[in-house]
């Protein structure tokens, strides 16, 4: 239960507009952070600013230990006032950081065929996870070689249009296979990314397969229906508006299965953001 949480500050290194409404921001933390895992997030706000009032939750897109200290990387989309304010930050600006927070993706050791399926900005945490798996950061140093040969990572990335395919540079660097779809057919196959995955599913060895996903709710819901008949472990990263990020405001509740009550609300910030897809309930 007790977990040490970091409350600190960071300095913006750069904040690059990589696609329409999408930015990649990197920060140098004021203190070293060695346990920031894929799937986790931080609450972030510009230091000394009262508007916007609340911090915004951003999932980790990359974590690097450098000589100067820990660098955190975020890929985010501007959707409102808070993310717009973050997009205005430039090199040298100071931010307040709370985190890393939440439950990370869990690596399943005996499943070597890893499928990562993302929609839109959902690519951010999965791109970091791809890097983490490709570099075998979950395994002890002396077992890395054996691991590298056995793990196969395939990334499915869907977006509305070619210009909204974000995180590809990182994804292509770390995944052997990348499958793409767009709603308008401007890149990859036309249609839903879940449809593309469904076509391939028959060819995959389901006993060796594990799935990780992040994206819009309708996509997660389709995925949930699609894999229901199969015994494939699937973890998904969920999103809700948050005020505190530490389980106090109860603002980020989502509906999950509950053994005794049938269902219950639980907090995305502390019990998630990564959930087993079988635990999610849909209206």
């Amino acid at each position: 239960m007790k977990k040490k949480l970091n409350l600190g500050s960071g300095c913006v290194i750069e904040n690059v507009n990589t696609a329409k409404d999408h930015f990649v921001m990197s920060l140098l933390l004021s203190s070293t952070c060695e346990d920031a895992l894929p799937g986790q997030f931080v609450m972030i706000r510009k230091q000394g600013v009262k508007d916007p009032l609340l911090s915004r939750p951003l999932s980790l897109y990359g974590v690097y230990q450098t000589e100067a200290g820990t660098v955190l990387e975020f890929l985010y989309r501007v959707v409102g006032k808070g993310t717009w304010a973050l997009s205005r930050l430039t090199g040298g600006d100071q931010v307040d950081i709370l985190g890393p927070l939440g439950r990370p993706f869990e690596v399943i050791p005996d499943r070597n065929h890893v499928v990562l399926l993302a929609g839109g900005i959902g690519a951010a945490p999965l791109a970091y996870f791809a890097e983490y798996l490709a570099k075998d950061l979950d395994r002890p140093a002396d077992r890395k070689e054996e691991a590298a040969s056995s793990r196969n990572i395939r990334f499915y990335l869907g977006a509305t249009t070619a210009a909204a395919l974000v995180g590809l540079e990182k994804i292509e660097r770390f995944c052997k296979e990348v499958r793409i779809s767009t709603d308008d057919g401007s890149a990859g196959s036309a249609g839903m990314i879940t449809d593309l995955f469904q076509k391939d599913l028959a060819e995959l060895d389901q006993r060796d397969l594990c799935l990780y996903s992040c994206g819009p709710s309708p996509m997660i819901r389709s995925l949930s229906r699609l894999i229901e008949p199969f015994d494939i472990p699937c973890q998904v990263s969920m999103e809700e508006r948050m005020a505190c990020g530490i389980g106090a405001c109860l603002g980020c509740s989502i509906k999950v299965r509950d053994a005794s009550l049938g269902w219950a609300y639980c907090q995305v910030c502390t019990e998630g953001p990564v959930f087993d897809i079988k635990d999610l309930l849909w209206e």
Partner: protein
Amino acid sequence: MPDLSVDIGGLKLKNPILTASGTFGYGEEYASFINLNDLGAIIVKGLSLKPRMGNPPPRIIETASGMLNAIGLQNVGVHAFIEKKMPYLRTLEVPVIANILGENAEEYRQIAELLSRAPGVAALEVNISCPNVSKGGIAFGANPDSAMDVVRRVKTVTDLPVIVKLSPNVTDIAMIAEAVESAGADALSLINTITGMSVDIERRIPHLKNITGGLSGPAIKPIALRMVWQVVNRVKIPVIGVGGIMDASDALEFLIVGATAVQIGTANFINPQSTIHILNGLHAYMEKHHIGNIHEIIGTLTC
């Protein structure tokens, strides 16, 4: 060291910095950020007789200098609180105040009775002002007769100090304050959130699934301050000021107006160490102005 101790209806606190119910969980959530024992008191998330699921999401939205919430009193229920949350809270030295909410007047009495028998509860805060539940809450706080009925029933079953949390969503808050004082309340806390709403113009739907929510944060501070000032002029019992306090100067405004203590709410979400920063700021202000006792500040407004 200046003396910051205050007395809230018989409850002695070493300083006037309290946490507002619903913004501080059950205390433990903040244990890795601050020494909880440095606080004047912890007021925990509102408790109902049975566990409550709360409202469907989305439950919060940021607005200009504030936020709307419609959590709907998601809580573990009074029994689970006593069994699962109190053991940890009892390990602390800080007084724990339980905030209670019933669906009817009788339920308030039942919850009060259970908590009064539970070791470690220092006081009760009776919530007759939650705007986000269909039964209870504001239904009692908007009417002086029903407010008095709830307070009288709670008072019959407890020896603990009873603080009544008032709603700003009324025509005359001072009238409600006088009514609950006459019914035996030991102290008042005000204000709860102000009912508001916000609309997504692209989809033309409310931002909150509950449609309306309670507004908190700096946006409501002038209103809270005005109401505290109105109420302290009409009642003799101590008043705890709450509403948009973000820093020590905000807290000082409430004290100067006449609040005996303050509660910190939304600020906890923005910085989990806000309470301690505010406490340190109070110390610094007192030292700067050579004030030895907090009572040299409380109720010293000159108009």
